[in-house]
């Protein structure tokens, strides 16, 4: 099974043997890779009970919960690495969620779809409709992505909060691209953050 490029990037950046919390872990694809390739006994948080069930039945430690509500229950610095993949834009308050992530983990990885990707811009400009793409395939009225965000928006939030960017990586068309003009060229972004 091949990992989504943003998850593969995160997997390649997590050191051996650290404590990892994967927030919004889905079916546990990343956790499974970390277990097999890094010897990491990661913990997951996932809101969808069917996905949690899949995780547990493959032997992963995953708690069903709502990141908006349940992250507060984790102690400070409980993990070396806290991962939030494709979940930030679903949060009721992404800024609070980011705070929680950096409280729980010494390092945080955040990945999100970039709403300023040029295909998005074209779709909105030309058609005047909310874009429905391969990576954001759901109509505006039923999407869980209630806080669409761009790379530059995210950078501005980090600057406001005084969060340190330890690295950032960008992806388009299923592969990694350079950093130049990421705000319009990148379909996906991965940020490594710390306080």
């Amino acid at each position, binding site marked *: 099974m091949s990992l989504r490029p943003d998850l593969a990037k995160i997997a390649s950046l997590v050191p051996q043997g650290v404590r990892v919390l994967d927030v919004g872990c889905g079916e546990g694809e990343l956790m499974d890779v970390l277990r097999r390739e890094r010897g990491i006994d990661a913990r997951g948080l996932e809101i969808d009970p069917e996905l949690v069930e899949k995780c547990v*039945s493959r*032997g992963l*430690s995953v*708690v*069903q919960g709502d990141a908006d509500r349940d992250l507060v229950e*984790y*102690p400070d610095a*409980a993990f070396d690495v806290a991962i939030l993949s494709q979940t930030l834009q679903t949060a009721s308050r992404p800024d609070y969620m980011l705070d929680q992530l950096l409280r729980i983990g010494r390092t945080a990885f955040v990945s999100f779809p970039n709403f300023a990707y040029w295909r998005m811009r074209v779709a909105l400009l030309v058609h005047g409709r909310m874009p429905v793409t391969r990576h954001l395939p759901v109509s505006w009225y039923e999407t869980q992505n209630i806080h669409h965000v761009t790379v530059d928006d995210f950078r501005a939030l980090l600057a406001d909060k005084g969060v340190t960017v330890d690295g950032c990586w960008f992806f388009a068309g299923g592969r990694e691209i350079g950093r130049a003009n990421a705000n319009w060229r990148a379909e996906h972004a991965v940020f490594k953050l710390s306080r």
Partner: protein
Amino acid sequence: MRGQLTACVSGPKSMPPMASVLASNLQTVTLDAPLALDSGKSLADARVAYETYGELAADKSNVILIFHALTGDQFVSGTNPVTGKPGWWDRMVGPGLPIDTARFHVICANIIGGCMGSTGPASLADDGQPWGMRFPVITIRDMVRAQVALLDQLGIGQLHAVIGGSMGGMLALSLAAHWPDRAARVLAIATTARHSAQNIAFHEVGRQAIMADPDWQGGDYYAAGKGPEKGLSVARMAAHITYLSEAGLTEKFGRRLQDRDAKSFGFDADFQVESYLRYQGIAFTNRFDANSYLYITRAMDYFDLAEEHGGRLADAFTDAKARFCVISFDTDWLYPTAESRAIVHALNAVAAPVSFVELSAPYGHDSFLLECPALDRVVGGFIG
């Protein structure tokens, strides 16, 4: 050894016909040392009745201990020799089932205080008379202590997993808290780390029903040939309601009438739900001792794992080394999901490896005993 079933299973007269067959078929161990109890008392020569399923591996590494619920017993799989019905978790435990007895050696023991061969209020005390209400009040931890002693005597060290639903889940959590090295995996289903005021209240209704029955006689009914069957039956009826969901009852019975076309304008069991509860109550008295019901519900009411650890539940799990899995059901209002979440948060606070899932099932608290494919997958996946 195969021991004798003494005054048990709700007294001589109501002892079901199969009990005499059973008497020579109960596998029991008498504990070597007196069993120390939380009350400060101790129980000498305590017997623990148990059943095993599946082969024990040469290195004894494949043992799963299952704790039964309030009115359960050691007959978890196969046919229960007392009731003649399938074991209480027959759909979960057996060859090729999620708890696969082709791979695992499953042990299930009757709790002390119970009435299926382990020492309880119906057992004979030193003076040759049934303990009755002279039996010491026991706790959930006492029940676990007896089973740990059983494991010691069977020469079994670390368990592959310990599993329990409802009260069995309390025992599993208690074992994880007090014997943290004993189990590699702890699976607690539809349970709680403490009995709520509502839980205690329902139990108190049941106890009062038993004690208000003139045939209870202060607990000394064993020689009378008749126990407090009315009271025990009412206790079971009240409790049974708490095991089911409102939607489940509605689906099963609605307001349908029992064997009649119109209301009788009397107090017969007009409604199917009444008839069903009466049947459940009466059937229960054939297999359960009223005093055991008093003692076990008391133990559950006393259970508060946080209280045992200075008021902070997380401190109960400070030394825990097991992997945990906690499962709740969305229609369980006896031990609702919030209770499971409290356990999960405590385990998170000590960074224990924990999984948690709230499963959707229509049957309320009893869902853990009934058809629920998602439960099968989670249980099978967790124990590996």
